[in-house]
């Protein structure tokens, strides 16, 4: 048992470190280091532009999408090299947020199902960040139950005509392309009538409307499709096989490890180390210490769980299922941490303005962003189902709509 790099890993780390040190946008390092959930802002700069510039710089030097093949804009690196890169990239990795969906989900799906010519055309600019992609899966009638989606695709000549609505689409407002899951046959069971496409987000008939979130920010969108035309050549996988295609997308995401989910613990620990309560330093208060210890072991547990997965990658093995706990644990923890940090501020915890609030309102922003982390990318409940069914081998839920033609499934609860 050790934490040492193999000689090859050490060589790769040295090379990555040197390049990052010479090329990263250092002027933003401090702000990025301090940014936390709900608050990633760069004063006097447009973060999207900074992010795109960094991504392009990485791509030009061969450091983008490391695990992708070279011909598609990657480096052909091993999974462990990708993890080492992330470790060395450190706070600058926070600039990759806008590319996560494109690189983690859209790219691998294109790689598995698009034609060779398309891959060579679309993947390199996706890797370099010149083109941003989004994933159009969720709908008002299909969130956790994504196979319940209703957006229709109808064949007309060599084209497909799309009508319907997507929702919770991260980054659609700055995306150039998207992968789109549609219903092509409503007369069969819901999982059996879906088809996947990719499309240009500037296609006529596509309308993106940002959603104002409960936090007041807008990261997600509604996307409306009115007679949008997609050529059949942009279909991914067979007609009505879209469910299996989407599973490939999601499985790819599970292989991406090390990105790290925010728990809020380092921020809280730092805060408690400097905070004075009425009767002394917060860090010397028994209750504070007990709370901190409980959060500390969750945060360290997640960190070491991820190291176990990295070790498997380093040995060329597939990581075990233990990494599936990350989002579930971190999501509810970051929310609790934010609430506790406000509690420690007493009545002044209500203040959220950067000038008046403690630590510039960091925990207030965290509090307001946190509910989203427990919903996006699979709710806490869906994550528990996944652990119970795929890790522990418990039976799936009874699905009353599984063998019913999609157009016979009830659409209303109480009339």
């Amino acid at each position, binding site marked *: *048992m*050790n*934490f*040492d*790099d193999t000689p090859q*890993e050490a060589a790769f780390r040295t090379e990555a470190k040197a390049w990052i040190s010479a090329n990263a946008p250092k002027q933003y390092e401090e702000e990025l280091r301090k940014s936390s959930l709900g608050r990633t802002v760069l004063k006097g700069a447009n973060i999207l532009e900074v992010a795109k510039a960094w991504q392009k710089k990485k791509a030009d030097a061969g450091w983008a999408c490391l695990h992708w093949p070279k011909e598609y804009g990657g480096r052909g690196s091993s999974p*462990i090299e990708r993890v080492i890169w992330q470790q060395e990239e450190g706070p600058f990795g926070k600039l990759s947020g806008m590319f996560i969906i494109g690189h983690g989900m859209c790219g691998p799906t294109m790689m598995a199902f698009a034609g060779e010519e398309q891959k060579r055309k679309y993947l390199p600019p996706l890797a370099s960040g010149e083109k941003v992609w989004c994933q159009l899966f969720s709908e008002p009638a299909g969130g956790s139950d994504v196979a319940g989606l209703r957006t229709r695709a109808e064949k007309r000549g060599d084209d497909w005509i799309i009508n319907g609505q997507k929702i919770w689409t991260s980054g659609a407002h700055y995306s150039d392309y998207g992968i789109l899951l549609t219903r092509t046959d409503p007369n069969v069971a819901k999982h059996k009538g879906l088809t996947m496409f990719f499309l240009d987000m500037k296609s006529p008939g596509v309308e993106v409307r940002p959603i104002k979130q409960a936090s007041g920010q807008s990261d997600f969108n509604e996307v409306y499709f009115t007679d949008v035309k997609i050529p059949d050549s942009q279909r991914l996988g067979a007609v009505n096989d879209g469910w299996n295609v989407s599973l490939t997308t999601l499985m790819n995401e599970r292989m991406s490890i090390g990105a790290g989910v925010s728990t809020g613990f380092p921020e809280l*620990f730092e805060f408690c*180390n400097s905070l004075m309560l009425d009767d002394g330093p917060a*860090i010397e208060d*028994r209750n504070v*210490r*007990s709370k*901190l*210890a*409980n959060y*500390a*072991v*969750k945060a*360290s*547990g*997640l*960190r*070491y*769980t991820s*190291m*176990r997965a*990295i*070790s*498997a990658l*380093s*040995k060329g093995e597939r990581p075990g299922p*233990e990494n599936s*706990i990350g989002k*579930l*644990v971190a999501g509810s923890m970051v929310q609790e941490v934010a609430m506790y940090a406000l509690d420690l501020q007493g009545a002044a915890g209500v203040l959220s303005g950067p000038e008046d609030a403690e630590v510039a309102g960091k925990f207030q922003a965290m509090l307001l962003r946190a509910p989203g982390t427990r919903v996006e990318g699979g709710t806490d*409940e869906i*994550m*528990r*189902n996944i*652990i*119970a*069914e795929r*890790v*522990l*081998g*418990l*039976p*799936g*839920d*009874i699905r009353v709509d599984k063998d019913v033609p999609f157009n016979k499934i009830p659409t209303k609860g109480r009339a």
Partner: protein
Amino acid sequence: MNFDFSDEQKQMRDEARKFLAEKCPSKAVREVLDGKAPYDKALWQGLAEMGFLGVAIPEEFGGAGAGHLELCVIAEEMGRANAPVPFSSTVYLAAEALLLAGSDAQKQKWLPKIASGEAIGTLALFEGKGNPSPKAIKLQASGGTLSGVKKPVPDGAIADFAVVAARTGSTGRDSDISLFLVDLKAGGVEAKSLTNVDPTRGQAELTFENAKAEPLGAAGDGWSILTQVLDRAAVLLAFEQVGGSDRALEMGRDYALDRIAFGRPIGSFQAVKHILADMYVSATLARSNCYYGAWALSTNASELPEAAAAARISATQAFQHCSKNNIQVHGGMGFTWEFDCHMYYRRANTTALTLGSLSYWEDQLIDRMRKKNAA
């Protein structure tokens, strides 16, 4: 990075699991639970023959000379089997104290006997309620003898010798405390068995009356040695707790697959699934914290104090969480004497206290994190 046990260590874990499945079935644990024996002597001898008692004891002192990583994997299996033997007191506490602070003669005297199963050892630290603290130690040492009362002492009624924490000064500093070795069979010590929450592991009151004692380690070093012993034992016991957590989770999972209610396996209900998923989460967090503790223990890293506290807290929480929810998943049957669920519940809630309570270790963890932060 290789943050995992080696293939040889995993093989040893498999060997220990196989051995314990055969020699320590629930029936054997129940013999002790029902008071028919104070501990499972046949199993104790078997563990000695397998080389498990002395796995981390150097060969020159009669052990296998493997190491602490090997001891961790065996500890996990001891916890999984709920073994009714004085393994933790003898191996994690007494042997570790000897290894850390014993003279060559003391090691020669006791370690080979531990490895061969001839001697049971323990640590006599507590004097009534409360957590590890130099202030709480009143038992007096004078002129090579000890007088006072220790309780609860794990396995105190069956132990052959004890490492005893005693007061040798009154300055109010940690250096008031020294450690002693006492041969419990040599007279001057009266042992009384105490009823406790987990009858498969004994607890006792030891009354010392001018009992002959020899110093273990330098005078005044007692508290500093104890702190190190407790850290090491915390990691090792945490592996037992992780083994117990996993077993409780498996029991719950198996029952949820087999038990039919409302016409379907209860494991198909989300209410039950989610309980089990949360058990998996806590057991996984604990296991990962324990691995870090194992690394720190085996390399004697400066991170050991922090790693030990984190492993201890996380594993205590996991075992309590998994053992209580295993009963919940079993419903009424889980609350019967006949089902094994309560044995893990009992063990979880006693191991949670034997090295000091959860709140004590929470406090320790924050102290240690602050020290690291300041450094």
